[in-house]
């Protein structure tokens, strides 16, 4: 009866209290009918003094079940889950300020890395463009010549034993070609992009024009002959504004290579034609000879297969013939080299040319395959 005394409220009857306990246990065990549940709910609402006790029973019921479920395995499993969650998302519940200071250095680091990488790539791409560019190169062997049309429409006639080189981005920024040997340029007009011919020592800038450049490495001079338009000639590495030599149509400039003595290369004919000389200020060495009002055909006709010879020495003529016909001309005596010739050659064979020279100059010759010997007449 101690137990009865612990119930401050009174059940209507002992039978009723048994009935309620029965229903309540059915509810706790999860097997109560909805009808019985309604009844029990109504009873609880009408007996508020009993609710605290039944609520307590329900609590103990659930707590006891939990107690049964608290195993060592569960404890270990939950601890592992906590560790995993803490390590995987440590910033999950940070305050906004904490989150900023957590993320800011990371984001900054990523941006810095990205920027550094971009600069690195840009450096590779823009700083060494020549390494990434391919060159177009055209070679003509001795005895041949070729006609090339550049990407911008400029037409180039390349003489024998010559080499023309231009980069694959020709025409994108500027128009530059490298020349070794002789070429005639008919430059497509484009005022926004200067056309420039680089030779071993001389740069020729053209402003929409046609001109001829001769720069064979074995010769002591680099010659530029202008037909139309305007070109500027300047030695490589020198300031353009102060050192540029400007040519008008029908003018020709002969540049003397730095390391070759002028005396050896200078030709009396050239000197006679020259109307202006430019000397290097420091050394007083003759650098340029400019001839005005010349007949340009003499210097450009090679492209049409014609050779114009105007009072040229046999040595000079021999070089031209060697190139045109891919032969080698040998002189028996030095005196032979100084003989002068004037005339024009068109479609003659090398034998015909040599025969004509022999008749005109009274010299003997011998032709053996590609070798030609010129001899004094006995």
């Amino acid at each position, binding site marked *: 009866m101690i137990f009865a005394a612990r119930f401050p409220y009174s059940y209507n009857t002992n039978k009723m209290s048994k009935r309620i306990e029965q229903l309540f246990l059915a509810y706790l065990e999860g097997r109560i009918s909805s009808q019985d549940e*309604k009844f029990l709910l109504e009873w609880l609402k009408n007996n508020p003094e009993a609710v605290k006790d039944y609520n307590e029973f329900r609590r103990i019921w659930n707590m*006891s079940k939990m107690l049964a479920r608290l195993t060592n395995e569960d404890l270990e499993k939950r601890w592992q889950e906590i560790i995993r969650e803490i390590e995987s998302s440590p910033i999950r519940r940070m305050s906004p300020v904490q989150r900023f200071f957590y993320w800011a250095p990371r984001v900054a680091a990523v941006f810095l890395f990205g920027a550094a990488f971009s600069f690195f790539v840009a450096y590779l791409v823009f700083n060494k463009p020549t390494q990434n560019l391919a060159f177009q190169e055209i070679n003509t062997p001795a005895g041949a010549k070729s006609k090339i049309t550049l990407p911008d429409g400029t037409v180039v006639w390349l003489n024998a034993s010559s080499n023309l080189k231009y980069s694959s981005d020709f025409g994108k920024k500027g128009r530059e070609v490298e020349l070794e040997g002789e070429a005639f340029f008919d430059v497509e007009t484009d005022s926004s992009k200067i056309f420039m011919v680089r030779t071993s020592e001389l740069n020729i800038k053209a402003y929409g024009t046609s001109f001829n450049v001769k720069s064979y490495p074995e010769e002591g001079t680099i010659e530029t002959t202008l037909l139309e338009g305007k070109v500027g000639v300047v030695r490589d590495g020198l300031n353009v504004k102060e050192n540029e030599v400007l040519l008008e149509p029908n003018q020709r400039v002969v540049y003397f290579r730095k390391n070759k003595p002028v005396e050896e290369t200078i030709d009396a004919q050239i000197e006679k034609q020259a109307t202006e000389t430019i000397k290097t200020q420091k050394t007083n060495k003759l650098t340029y000879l400019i001839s005005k009002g010349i007949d340009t055909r003499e210097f450009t006709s090679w492209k049409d297969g014609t050779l114009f010879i105007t009072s040229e020495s046999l040595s000079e003529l021999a070089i031209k013939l060697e190139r045109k016909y891919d032969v080698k001309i040998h002189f028996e005596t030095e005196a032979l080299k100084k003989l002068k010739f004037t005339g024009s050659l068109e479609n003659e064979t090398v034998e015909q040319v040599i025969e004509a020279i022999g008749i005109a100059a009274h010299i003997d010759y011998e032709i053996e395959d590609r070798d030609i010997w010129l001899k004094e007449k006995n």
Partner: protein
Amino acid sequence: MWFFSLYSPRNKKGISATEFHQLFREIYPDLCVYVSRYLNDEETAKDIVQDVLITFWEESEKLKDKKLIRPYLFKSVKHRALNHLKRESRKLPLDAFFDSFNETLANNENESVESFLALENLQSDLEKAINELPEQRQRIFRMSRFEEMKHKEIAAALDISPKTVETQIFRALKFIRDKLGGE
């Protein structure tokens, strides 16, 4: 790497990782039992406790007084449990009735540090109370709660009347209530 660890949430903790593990082992069962006062779904109860412990660890640098850890955790799981009950929509009318009763009760509860400190040995107190039950009653109660047998199954197993089982279960519940509430 200094700037990575400087703002790391695992830096400057109020307690060490070892201390946290120790705390977890001690308080996890008590918190689970405590949450079960409000929730009859054990998995949800355990999830709430787990979440509260993670949050506590991540914010433990704010910790001023180590003595307040346990009261703080009990209070946290209590409020998380009550919030969960409010959001839960589909439930039996009787569950809803007890939930709202518990809510009212909890809102009027004294939330002093001392009242939470009293819960510190909740799990062992409950265990002790069950162990103190008379043999037959304890046996029936354990079969009901630990093995989750219906009272009719227990009656069949022990070859006694279902009414006796029913009576014994209620006597056990009353005994435990008196034990837990009376101290």
